[in-house]
């Protein structure tokens, strides 16, 4: 691959982003040639690869200069010259933390899968491939490249759910696959449209995100394109009413699969909304603000209400994700610095806390062999540490101040309130509902007398599980007490994102924005 020079200022730097993206894939290639009988070798190798990737992600963090807006560490290369396909990776304050989150949770995913023996080689390879695709999705600045990574995610995840899940795994895997594929069909069409539109307008067809931002589109076209992007990402987020694949997929997936699904995959949807919908179609974003916000609000309340009544603990956590991701979208579509920063932070938070919840549920399942809350009860008596950790994480998930969930939730509410008070007031009901379903679930699982006498012999956390949970808990506490290192990097990126949507909030010099032409002929959700 020939490295082309970045157009304005040829910067020579170490290609951190390329390395961090493809390190897991390289690890997977090596794993493929290792003998499949050497189970421990595979596990250790996968762990090593994910740890190295984490190291690389941290190195990227240190190479990233905070306070600056725009994309940094851009790696650029020509891919197919005649068609102007480019390989462009770049990072800003939003994607930076998504990548870190991914790299941070992957070792946990590998560790929690330590007991998987059936076809473990392929399982671990699937995870490594998945990691590359996830990191690539967050870093790609070329729409075609993004789409490739976005689609590449599906296959390993499909295999993980369908191959190593529980009873209804095939149903869940196919449902997951179909929902996402249906969404991305729209995405592909919209991307191609932009590509050819760029050809007729800029003189050369391109998928380059930053170049496409300069397009000027007819107002109705921009809105249709917004919707096409929106559907693809709304499935992934997931927004009501496209969320129904999620409880099934989460419930049936193996523990590590649920972890990654909840912690990272859903974020790609939200990330896509922030990066592409806001970035490419600012006018349409404003136009659909109420529409999207109301969907998010429905999701917030609806997810919480449905979670209330679940008896399957994994399903309960899954529905709580619907509610939490609603907060992310609500904050995003407030178009205020606080709201969007809160949304981005909430993505990280949700990754940590819901990810940890899935890990804990998996650990419970390994011991009790059930996900039914009715079959648990009194587990705090035999597993005090696990119960304590569970409570800690649950509290983070319901937004207890001092833990990470609060900071994000509060900023989202704040950012939303200053724009539309009613939205914030409705959203705050979920704060109460979250306490109800989480604590009720906790009570049914942990409190009371032992419902199954055999559970009295169950062991508490072991060393491996400590190694999984302690870093996540540390992260939860750190962000809760001292979120500044994150927020100070997120904020400039957020301002940059809002530069066209909400210039007043952004307080940045408006350079070039996608313009729209013509009069609004298209009217699904006109603002009141």
């Amino acid at each position, binding site marked *: 691959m020939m490295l082309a020079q970045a157009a304005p200022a040829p910067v020579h730097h170490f290609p951190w982003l390329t390395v961090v993206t493809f390190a897991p894939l390289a690890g997977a290639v090596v794993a493929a040639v290792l003998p499949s009988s050497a189970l421990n070798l595979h596990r250790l190798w996968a762990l090593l690869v994910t740890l190295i990737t984490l190291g690389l992600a941290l190195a990227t963090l240190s190479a990233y200069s905070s306070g600056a807006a725009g994309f940094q560490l851009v790696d650029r290369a020509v891919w197919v010259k005649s068609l102007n396909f480019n390989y462009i990776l770049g990072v800003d304050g939003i994607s930076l933390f998504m990548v870190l989150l991914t790299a941070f949770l992957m070792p946990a995913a590998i560790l929690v899968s330590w007991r998987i023996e059936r076809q473990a080689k392929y399982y671990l390879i699937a995870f490594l491939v998945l990691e590359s695709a996830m990191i690539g999705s967050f870093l790609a600045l070329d729409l075609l490249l993004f789409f490739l990574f976005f689609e590449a995610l599906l296959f390993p995840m499909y295999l993980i759910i369908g191959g190593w899940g529980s009873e209804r795994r095939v149903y869940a895997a196919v449902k997951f696959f179909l929902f996402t594929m249906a969404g991305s069909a729209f995405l592909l069409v919209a991307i191609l449209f932009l590509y050819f539109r760029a050809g007729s307008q800029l003189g050369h067809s391109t998928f380059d995100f930053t170049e496409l931002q300069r397009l000027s589109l007819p107002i109705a076209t921009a809105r249709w394109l917004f919707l096409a992007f929106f559907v693809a990402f709304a499935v992934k987020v997931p927004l009501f009413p496209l969320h129904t694949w999620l409880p099934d997929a989460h419930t049936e997936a193996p523990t590590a699969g649920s972890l990654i699904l909840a912690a990272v995959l859903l974020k790609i949807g939200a990330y896509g909304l922030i990066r592409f919908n806001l970035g490419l179609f600012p006018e349409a974003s404003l136009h659909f603000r109420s529409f999207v916000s109301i969907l998010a609000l429905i999701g917030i309340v609806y997810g919480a209400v449905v979670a209330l009544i679940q008896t399957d603990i994994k399903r309960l956590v899954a529905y709580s994700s619907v509610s939490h991701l609603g907060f992310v979208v609500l904050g995003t579509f407030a178009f205020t610095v606080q709201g969007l920063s809160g949304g981005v932070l909430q993505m990280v938070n949700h990754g940590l806390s819901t990810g940890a919840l899935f890990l804990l549920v998996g650990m419970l399942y390994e011991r009790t062999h059930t996900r039914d809350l009715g079959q648990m009860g009194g587990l705090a008596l035999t597993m005090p540490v696990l119960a304590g950790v569970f409570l800690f994480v649950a509290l983070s998930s319901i937004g207890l101040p001092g833990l990470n969930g609060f900071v994000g939730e509060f900023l989202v509410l704040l950012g939303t309130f200053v724009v539309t008070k009613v939205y914030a007031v409705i959203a705050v009901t979920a704060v109460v509902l979250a306490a109800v379903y989480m604590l009720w679930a906790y009570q049914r699982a942990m409190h009371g007398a032992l419902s199954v006498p055999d559970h009295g012999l169950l062991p508490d956390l072991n060393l491996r599980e400590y190694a999984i949970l302690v870093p996540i808990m540390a992260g939860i506490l750190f962000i809760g007490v001292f979120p500044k290192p994150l*927020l100070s990097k997120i904020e400039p990126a957020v301002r940059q994102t809002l530069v066209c949507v909400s210039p007043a909030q952004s307080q940045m010099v408006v350079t070039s924005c996608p313009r729209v032409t013509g009069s609004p002929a298209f009217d699904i959700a006109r603002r009141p």
Partner: protein
Amino acid sequence: MNILAPFIPAIPLAGAAVLLLTGPRWRDRSAGWLASAAVAVAFGLAVTVFGTLVSRPVTLRLSHVSLFEWIGVGSFRVDIAFRVDPLSTVMALTVTGVGAMIHLYAVDYMRGDPRYARFFAYMNLFVFFMLVLVLADNYLLLYVGWEGVGLCSYLLIGFWFERKTAADAAKKAFVTTRIGDSALLIGLIFMWSRFGSLDFDRVLPHAHALANGTATVMAMLLFAGAVGKSAQLPLHVWLPDAMEGPTPVSALIHAATMVTAGVYLVVRSHQIFEASGVALTIVAVVGLVTAIYAGLSAIGQDDIKRMLAYSTISQLGFMFFGAGMGAYSAAIFLLVAHAFFKAVLFLGAGSVMHALPDEETDMTRMGGLRRAMPLTAVTWVVGWLAMAGIPPLSGFFAKDQVVAAASQAGRIGLWYAALFGALLTALYETRGTFLTFFGEPRHRGHPHDPPSLMRTALVSLAVGAALAGVLGLSATSGLLPKFLTPVVGPTKEAVAGPSELVLSIISVAVALVGILTAWLVYLSGRIDWMALRVRFASAKRTFQRGFYVNDFYSGAIVGPAKLAAAFVAYVVDRRVVDGTLTGIGRLVSSSAGAARRAQTGLVRTYAVGILLGATAVLGYLVVRS
């Protein structure tokens, strides 16, 4: 010296962290000693800070200690910052002082519990959050403490989580207070959107400029938080259930400190309440209604702890009433006095339970305990008389000032109602005393006074309850009112009504009437109170069940809500939403099934297809040319 302020909460936090992480390794009572020591050190630090504060001139009695910026996005900035001013110091002293005594009591009380160290970890954690709440320099940090104490309350009510009732009560407490908390959260956001800051110093001095309606909304949102946390109507239902927790918890959290946070919030934010015309009146009315409601309910209780719980609700009502009348320092005074005498009463109740078999809490199965437990009885009597409002005990001065505030503000109706509340207070508290410690023994077992540590705590708190009155001998020129003046302003001069002395006499008279009535019924022997219970069974039951408010909630709100949730989950989500989406899938696959029949598998059919296509294409070409 105010640099010490952050250490006041930090030391209990360190204690909690050490105990949580090293838990079971602490043998015997060492964990309890460690925790008590942490709170005692915090108390010492608070005293030091207090000392430096009083050594300064009145106008300079305020300092801030900012640690670091907590959340900062755009124009929103909030620091982790502590505030040392008279109000926060008084609160910190109360929390750490009473807290240290209760910790000491618990060292023996909790002895032998399998989760001994964890109990003290939670207690220390609670003290930490409570101190954060009272020492915070901005509303968001206050909110941190606010939610934190809620968490500790949850953990400690549900400390014996093997019991379903305890686990239920814990969850109920957390959820119910969270309803108020969410309103408070919105209130804070609303506040920020108006003032652009959440620092007390940037909000409160400008509050008077708020429009009337805005101020009312903001004040009501804050007050909603206070209502939840301080168990006022209509969010009071969690507090009686919270008695499932160990008794020291009830004493510390559900009597002396946490539940008074609402009063602290109102007093702290009084400028906002004042900016609204009606907010203070609402606060006063809610407080008064709650006081009378809880007083009546307390009369119907047989469970000693539930009786004390309702009495707490009632006393909190008085505090809100005082604040609503503008008598902020009187409200805080009552808060401090209440912390002492209610702690004594709870710890006394704990001693009784400790002494009787099976942790007996039913007062109808006690009686005459003063002979078996003389020291407990003496301290209890101090608490009882203080609460009933008999001079010269602390409760007299405090409650008298609160009640008098109504008369002095010229609101005679409210004053009468408050007097009625005071009467009820004397009545139910005396009833409880007589049923427990006087009359004929009805109990089993051989009760005895508690061990020395518990006795020490009881005596110290009783001394406090007796002597705290010196803080506020006069509503205008007492020590506490003068000390608090920089924060809450000078006590308002009386505009109407009789003089202070007359009001005091009326107060005492009302208290005596209450005590005498109780004596007549429960101790004099002239009335068979057991027969009365049967005769007025339905009224008794209504009182005991708190006018069925809780039953109403569980029947009209919780039950239907569960049904609705089940409907949404199983009908809407499974059938309607998922049904629609998978229905689309099924439509595709069934139409594919129809299309499938075109695939006969017979090669000649396919040949027809090819020919058809060829003729069509050729036909098109021919026709077009």
